């Protein structure tokens, strides 16, 4: 188990903490950040508790990153290692960009959900655990045994386990033992971390605003009970200083940001078919888009969703389709049609674990090559990946602009980590021009060609039904400037040429990515998408150890940003860090020649001919900065050795 514990001052702070717990002296530890999680059976409200805690912390001015802990089943059996539901909140004085390493303090409603986190290696070796105590001496012998076995298994770690009569206390206020425990827990956390009680009360009042006032009161009473219990029984507190932020800020998850981004970008039409973890983008949109004069159409399947979106785009709307891996697979044929007919279309793929149905609720970055190359024939398109929650919002604005300017398909690759991760960012400035319709219905000059390609740029004017003199017939067959089916060699070469040229033109407008850290050194870590925060944190730690490491994060995968080869040449080694599969050297049969590499790694090798290595994992979880840090260190050590 890792020993890196940046949240606590090294050495003495920890033993101090241990001392204070052992001796009973109340002590406040001032730390730059902390990671807390609250876990329970699903249905016990742990998620709500975590959300309020996270959002109150954000409002107080802390940097916050929240991760959902979701069980595989809708209603899994209680007290089971597969049932864990809850929230992990990492918060600190500065901006928090990722879920960090391991949890420092956990509240668990039973020992089984705790055990599941232990097995997943989610808890810091010195984690403080506030665990419900009713199971230890439960009437049911089986439960007692389960408790004992679990505690035995967890004794391998140095956890500080504090037993709390959560249910017993809560029952002082509520009748139903399944309700209210989460608010009691919230109270304990509020006391431990000195959260602003007024903010908590407001948040609770807001959540239950449609319920009788009594409900809010009860919940607040429970919180206060938790505070009181913690005050009387816990001998430690943490102080995570907050900052005053001048600019207005918002806090949301990536799917919410994507949905709001779509609306802000003037997207009026979304066709979709439900699929985890993309569906909640549509849920957000469904909730509000109609009041913007827009619409979400739930189609009979993903194929239809793509087709309806293309029809809407043809009709002159700004069209969007949102899906995840298996859904994108079904859209493959229609995506090629969008490319061939130069129909502007934005497709958001919220990546999950694959292949096939894979890991529906878990993060992976393995749809990159499918997004780039999934279509038969030559089908150039733009592929981009937001790296933060804020990016999710902004990328929708960019994607629309590219799609329309270049009459092209734009694929936006987010992932399950961004989808459900919650973070705050400066409230976006909106622009009315984003809301403009792509085209009006005025007549076009007689003889206007549907593909009046500028032979140098491949760009052409878009015409939509309703425009007099513009009548033409779109086709997915090879066609000429008139959109007439044509099998002539020249016309096929020209069409391929024009569709591809647009990417080169777009590429010429891009700037080289920035290097974080020194402009040259021993190792450059290249990443893309949601791993940015974790990578930069890891690189920061390595640099603090005086390692000559920098990082560089790519936004566009097709076309690639300029200058990569030049940037890479300034580093002795280049390595991508990705959440996708690669073979490991040293494994049986794996050679440098047959080794299958990370997807971005592969792409960049072809693009730059630089001997790029990769460090990739597919744990169905976001990467941890600590693990990336270790990878950096060992990569440099190997480098030194070779």
């Amino acid at each position, binding site marked *: 188990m890792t020993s890196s514990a940046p949240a606590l001052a090294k050495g003495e702070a920890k033993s101090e903490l241990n001392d204070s717990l052992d001796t009973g002296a109340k002590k406040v530890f001032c730390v730059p950040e902390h990671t807390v999680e609250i876990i329970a059976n699903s249905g016990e409200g742990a998620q709500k508790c975590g959300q309020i805690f996270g959002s109150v912390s*954000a*409002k107080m001015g802390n940097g916050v990153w929240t991760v959902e802990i979701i069980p595989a089943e809708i209603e899994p059996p209680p007290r089971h290692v597969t049932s864990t539901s809850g929230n992990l909140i990492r918060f600190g004085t500065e901006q928090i960009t990722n879920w960090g390493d391991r949890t420092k303090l956990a509240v668990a409603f039973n020992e089984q959900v705790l055990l599941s986190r232990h097995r997943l290696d989610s808890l810091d070796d010195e984690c403080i655990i506030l665990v419900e105590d009713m199971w230890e001496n439960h009437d049911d012998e089986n439960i007692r045994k389960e408790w004992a076995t679990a505690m035995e298994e967890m004794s391998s770690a140095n956890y500080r386990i504090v037993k709390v009569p959560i249910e017993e206390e809560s029952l002082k206020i509520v009748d139903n033992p399944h309700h209210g425990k989460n608010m009691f827990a919230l109270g304990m956390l509020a006391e431990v971390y000195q959260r602003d009680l007024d903010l908590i009360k407001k948040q609770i009042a807001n959540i239950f605003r449609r319920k009788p006032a009594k409900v809010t009161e009860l919940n607040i009473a429970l919180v206060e009970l938790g505070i009181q219990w913690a005050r009387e029984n816990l001998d430690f507190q943490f102080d995570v200083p907050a900052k005053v*932020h001048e600019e207005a*800020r*918002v*806090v949301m998850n990536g799917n919410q940001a994507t949905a*709001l981004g779509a*609306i*802000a970008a*003037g997207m009026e*039409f979304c*066709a979709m078919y439900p699929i985890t973890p993309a569906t909640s983008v549509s849920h957000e949109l469904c909730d*509000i888009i109609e*009041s*913007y*004069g*827009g*619409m979400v*159409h739930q*189609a*009979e*399947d993903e*194929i*239809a*969703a*793509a*087709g*309806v979106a*293309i*029809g*809407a*785009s*043809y*009709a*002159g*709307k700004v*069209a969007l389709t949102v899906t995840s891996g298996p859904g994108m697979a079904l859209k493959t*044929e*229609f995506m090629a*049609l969008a490319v061939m007919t130069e129909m502007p279309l934005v497709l958001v793929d919220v990546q999950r674990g694959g292949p096939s149905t894979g890991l529906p609720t878990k993060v992976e970055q393995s749809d990159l090559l499918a997004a780039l190359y999934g279509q038969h024939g030559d089908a150039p398109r733009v592929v981009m990946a937001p790296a933060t929650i804020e990016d999710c919002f902004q990328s929708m604005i960019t994607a629309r602009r590219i799609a329309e300017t270049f009459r092209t398909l734009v694929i936006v690759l987010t992932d399950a980590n961004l989808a459900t991760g919650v973070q*705050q960012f400066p*409230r*976006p400035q*909106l622009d*009315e*021009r984003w*809301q*403009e319709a792509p085209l009006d219905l005025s007549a076009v000059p007689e003889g206007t060609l549907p593909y009046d390609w500028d032979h140098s740029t491949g760009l052409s004017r878009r015409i939509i*039904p*309703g425009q*007099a003199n*513009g*009548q*033409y*017939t*779109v*086709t*997915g*067959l090879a066609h000429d400037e008139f959109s*007439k089916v044509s099998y002539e060699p020249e016309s096929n070469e020209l069409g391929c040429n024009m569709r591809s040229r647009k990417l080169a033109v777009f590429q010429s407008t891009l700037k080289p990515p920035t290097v974080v850290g020194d402009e040259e050194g021993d190792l450059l870590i290249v990443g893309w998408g949601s791993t940015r925060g974790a990578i930069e944190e890891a690189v920061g730690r390595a640099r603090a150890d005086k390692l000559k490491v920098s990082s560089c994060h790519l936004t566009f995968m097709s076309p690639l940003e300029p200058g990569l080869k030049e940037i890479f040449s300034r580093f002795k080694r280049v390595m991508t860090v990705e959440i996708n599969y690669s073979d490991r050297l040293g494994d049986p049969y794996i050679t440098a020649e047959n080794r299958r590499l990370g997807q971005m790694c592969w792409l960049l090798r072809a693009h730059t001919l630089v001997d790029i290595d990769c460090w990739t994992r597919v744990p169905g979880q976001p990467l941890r900065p600590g693990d990336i840090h270790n990878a950096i260190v060992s990569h440099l050590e190997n480098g030194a050795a070779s």
Partner: protein
Amino acid sequence: MSVSMPSFLNCISDDDFAHYEVDDYQKCVAKWCSGCGDFGALNATKRLLAKEQLQPENTVFVSGIGCSSRFPHYVNSYGFHGIHGRALPIATGVKLTRPELDVFVVMGDGDCCSIGTAHWIHAIRYNMDMTVLLLDNNIYGLTKKQTSPTTPIGFSTNTMPRGSYLPPLNPLTATLGVSNASFVAQTADWIPAHMYATLQAAYEHKGFSFVRILQRCPKFTPDVFTDAVKNPDNNELLVHENGIDAPGLEKLFKNRIIHDPKDLDGGRHYAEVENRVRLGLFYRNGELPCYEDTREVVSVTAAEKIQKINTEFDRYAV
């Protein structure tokens, strides 16, 4: 499909509008085999367009892939020659976002009833106001003679050389089985007057007007409709005062069934194949809401949108 111009406008002089002759709706020369039934469907359609004086720029023909799906290339209007089996999703996208456009959909039997099945069944449910032509030649034409869902059992094709294995799918009963079906008719390319009248009725119906056109393919299924083509007595017309009115057919076509298109049970019953080819209107219900109406959007200015998004942000404000 509804008539796009409200009737009180009839009193406005025609001079205010460009006038289109039938031939004005022809885009380029159609390239089907000689004797192909698709020509007849194209002609009847152009007549309808002229009769209704549809504006080419406000009319959209959508198709999939197949011989029949070349249709949009031959009509002077906007067109979308899509991909195999997917005409209806594309048409849905068009109609849903631009309900003021007149939308026609043209599909082959493979296109609609095989690869396009899911979209077909669901489009019936959506009941969008569009005119849908199923050009059913009982075969895959473009790919050269493979069995389609409507190919007669025993008929030899390149994929079933010892005869097709299954009894044909009946597109009429299938359509009539779907909740929200609102207009289901059958006509044949060999009775142009009936075909025209059927398309006319389909166009006038507000909702998803599904017209199966029995279409001759002299190339690959030259004989499947011969009995009905050669002998009017092998045809049977569904007639009713609320049905399809194709005057002048009484003399030639003696076999007639009086069927009220309101009667769904009866429509389903008559849609079952018997020994004659049955043509006419099996079911019509003009009362069912159209999806594009249900989903009608409000108009919001850019400034209002910005304001709304800002209100939204307030919900997420730190």
